[in-house]
């Protein structure tokens, strides 16, 4: 029996179509993945099926949910089905829980008000839900006392409490590290195994692979390819799908190691603390021109802290960083995770870049020469940072660094907010920079595959360091 059947769903904004007809159906026990990059319309499709589109967008099409027939153009008809027929998993579970209500209350209220259980019964049911998800004893906590993973599980319990059989998960792994991403995927599959349908919307190829089932690939509001997830990912038939899959770090070619140049820095016995807890200790390494040191590990393990210590922005609890002699104060630079936050937001990019060029004895001509090298159109310079796409702005940030001629760049998750194809472009440029500019790079990423294929050496931080090929002590003196 088909759980959900959506036919010819379209979305338009003021008469302009932004999602072209898409049909999909959801069978019990078989997940459906909608894969697409930013602007592909994948979230619009999900919102049209749930009746949660923003007011200025209009949807068309027919949705059959169990024995309910709905018109996508009338979103009000969907409301009675929320929680009872469709459960929606939010993008950012932390922000999706009421900060002023305890975790168990947020699950119990759905049991009571949606399923109609009595007060005590609802509370008991909520406790058993949380126990089943491995959250025994966490029910009395407030959301800010939960970790991201725990919040995710509370959100799943709350979303499912109303008894819905169809689960729609919109980018459920946004901003999660690899371990947490797999955990979420397994959790969703476990819910699926209890009977029901699962629709996962994502740009994350690793998540798609893990979820399996069937897949729809979207691009710019149109369906590119459909089929079984395993076969689409194994043998894509469309050029775009091929590009997309090739852009997955798992599928990147290994970078040829660069010959080390002159030494840039030596770190000896570094240790750092956060909030009284030791993040890492006894880290020693050298870094030479043209080399890339990859740093990986789960969220909160101190990757960014290490970079800031090397840059001199934070003081190490122990140990020291020695810069090579003759390097200027601006030889050490940083590439940020969120490029929008790294530029002055009230100015257009041209004066910002020109100031940097002048400060370092260069002219407009140098900017003009670098723009095409980074694949950037001149018109971007007339815009403010928030009016430029993430990939373009990250390349402009690279351009800004090139004006300084740095000897060391700390790249702090520079592509974690970018789509796969854009991510590959930026990482390729970064590797290129290491080689042509003779620059040492410390590349932080939560994605072990990305680091493994890019870096000359890998430094793995965190408790499960033993799982990775190179453990911190072995990195010492290994980078020359």
């Amino acid at each position, binding site marked *: 029996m088909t759980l959900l059947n959506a036919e010819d769903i379209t979305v338009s904004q003021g008469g302009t179509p932004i999602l072209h007809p898409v049909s999909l159906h959801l069978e019990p026990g078989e997940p459906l993945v909608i894969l697409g990059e930013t602007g592909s319309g994948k979230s619009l499709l999900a919102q049209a099926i*749930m009746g*949660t589109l923003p007011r200025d967008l209009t949807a068309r099409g027919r949705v059959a949910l169990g024995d309910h027939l709905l018109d996508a153009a009338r979103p009000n008809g969907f*409301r009675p089905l*929320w*929680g*009872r027929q469709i*459960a*929606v998993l*939010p*993008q*950012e579970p932390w*922000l*999706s*829980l*009421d*900060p*002023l*209500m305890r975790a168990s209350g947020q699950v119990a*209220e*759905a049991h009571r*008000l*949606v399923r109609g259980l009595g007060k005590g019964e609802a509370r008991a049911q909520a406790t058993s839900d949380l126990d089943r998800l491995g959250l025994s004893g966490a029910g009395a906590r*407030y959301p*800010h006392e939960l970790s991201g993973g725990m919040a995710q599980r509370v*959100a799943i319990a*709350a*979303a499912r*409490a*109303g008894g*819905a059989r169809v689960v729609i998960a919109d980018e459920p792994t946004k901003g999660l590290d690899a371990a947490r991403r797999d955990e979420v995927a397994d959790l969703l599959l476990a819910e699926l195994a209890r009977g029901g349908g699962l629709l996962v919307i994502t740009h994350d190829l690793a998540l798609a692979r893990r979820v399996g089932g069937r897949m729809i690939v979207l691009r710019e509001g149109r369906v590119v390819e459909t089929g079984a997830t395993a076969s689409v990912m194994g043998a894509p038939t469309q050029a775009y799908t091929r590009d997309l899959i090739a852009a997955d770090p798992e599928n990147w070619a290994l970078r040829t190691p660069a010959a080390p140049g002159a030494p840039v820095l030596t770190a000896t016995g570094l240790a750092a603390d956060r909030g009284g807890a030791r993040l890492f200790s006894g880290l020693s390494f050298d870094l030479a021109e043209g080399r890339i040191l990859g740093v990986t590990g789960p969220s909160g393990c101190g990757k960014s802290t290490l970079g800031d210590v090397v840059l001199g922005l934070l003081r190490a609890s122990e140990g020291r960083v020695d810069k090579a002699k003759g390097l200027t104060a601006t030889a050490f630079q940083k590439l940020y995770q969120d490029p929008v936050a790294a530029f002055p937001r009230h100015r257009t990019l041209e004066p910002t870049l020109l100031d940097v060029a002048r400060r370092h004895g260069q002219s407009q001509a140098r900017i003009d020469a670098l723009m095409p090298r980074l694949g950037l159109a001149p018109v971007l310079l007339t815009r403010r940072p928030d009016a430029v796409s993430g990939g373009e702005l990250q390349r402009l940030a690279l351009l800004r660094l090139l004006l300084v001629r740095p000897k060391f760049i700390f790249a702090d998750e520079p592509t974690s907010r970018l789509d796969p194809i854009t991510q590959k472009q930026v990482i390729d440029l970064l590797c290129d920079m290491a080689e042509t500019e003779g620059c040492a790079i410390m590349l932080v990423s939560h994605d072990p595959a990305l680091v493994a294929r890019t870096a000359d050496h890998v430094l793995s931080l965190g408790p499960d360091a033993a799982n990775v090929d190179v453990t911190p002590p072995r990195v010492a003196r290994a980078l020359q």
Partner: protein
Amino acid sequence: MNTLITRGIQALMVAVLIGAATFAMMRALPGDAAYRIAAGRYGYDNVDTAAADAVRDELGLGGPALPAFLSWLGDLLRLDFGTSLVTGNPVIEEIGHQLGASMALAGVAVLLSLVLGPPLGILAGLRPGGVLDRLLLVVSTGLKAVPQFLMALILILILSVQFRLLPAAGHGEARHFILPALALALGLAAVNARIARDAMARIGAMPFYSFAQWKGLSPHQTLWRHGLRNVSVPLLTYLGLQFVTLVEGVVVVEAVFGWPGIGHALVHAIFSRDVPMVQGTALCLGLSFVLINAVIDVLTQRIDPRRAT
């Protein structure tokens, strides 16, 4: 706990500031201050040079400024305000009489503003950009541009002088409350409504508010269980900050309506340069602000556990 210590420091600083200001006021008194104070204490007929000298020594008025200031502050911190220069009664007694009348007026005004403002604000915030929202914006902007004394004047002209519905002055009966309380409440309600509206609009747009409805809760249930509690935190916080506006309003409105409260007394005390009374009333008002905000700190921490950490 931490916030209570901060409030304690704030209270201390308030006392020091008021001490400094009233000390400067005392020193700036025209003529012989000691003589005037002695006159206030013992009556003009009983004042002689000896009594004035005794006061001079006691308050350190003749000596260098710093020791005099320190002894002045010392008296203040021991809550020894002395006696009124005008009536000769202890300041504490005078304030005790007036505080009740002011608190009654302020309490009625705040209640009235809470009945009028936040419910409208929340309704408007549930549909930002809707008819009610735009109407409320116009009305609240207009009301905010009317200072309390002007509101009092307009209310007196319309309700008291033109239509003779309510008394413009007097104190003691319930109907005497209506005009002064309304003059205070309308301005407060305009601000409350905006704060509630902005908070509701912001909370309504938060992911958890949508998620609550996706769980299957009705709009009404969502507002009741997730909206109001979240709106109450910013509302309470700004209610505390608004206390200063309320006190300013009380000072003016009491003077306009001849309400025998602390604000009325303060205006008179400043007018007649009754420094001990000014000091007592100012300290009373400043410390009430700190106290009320400390209570609100504790309340908001109970509602919002994130604030307690």
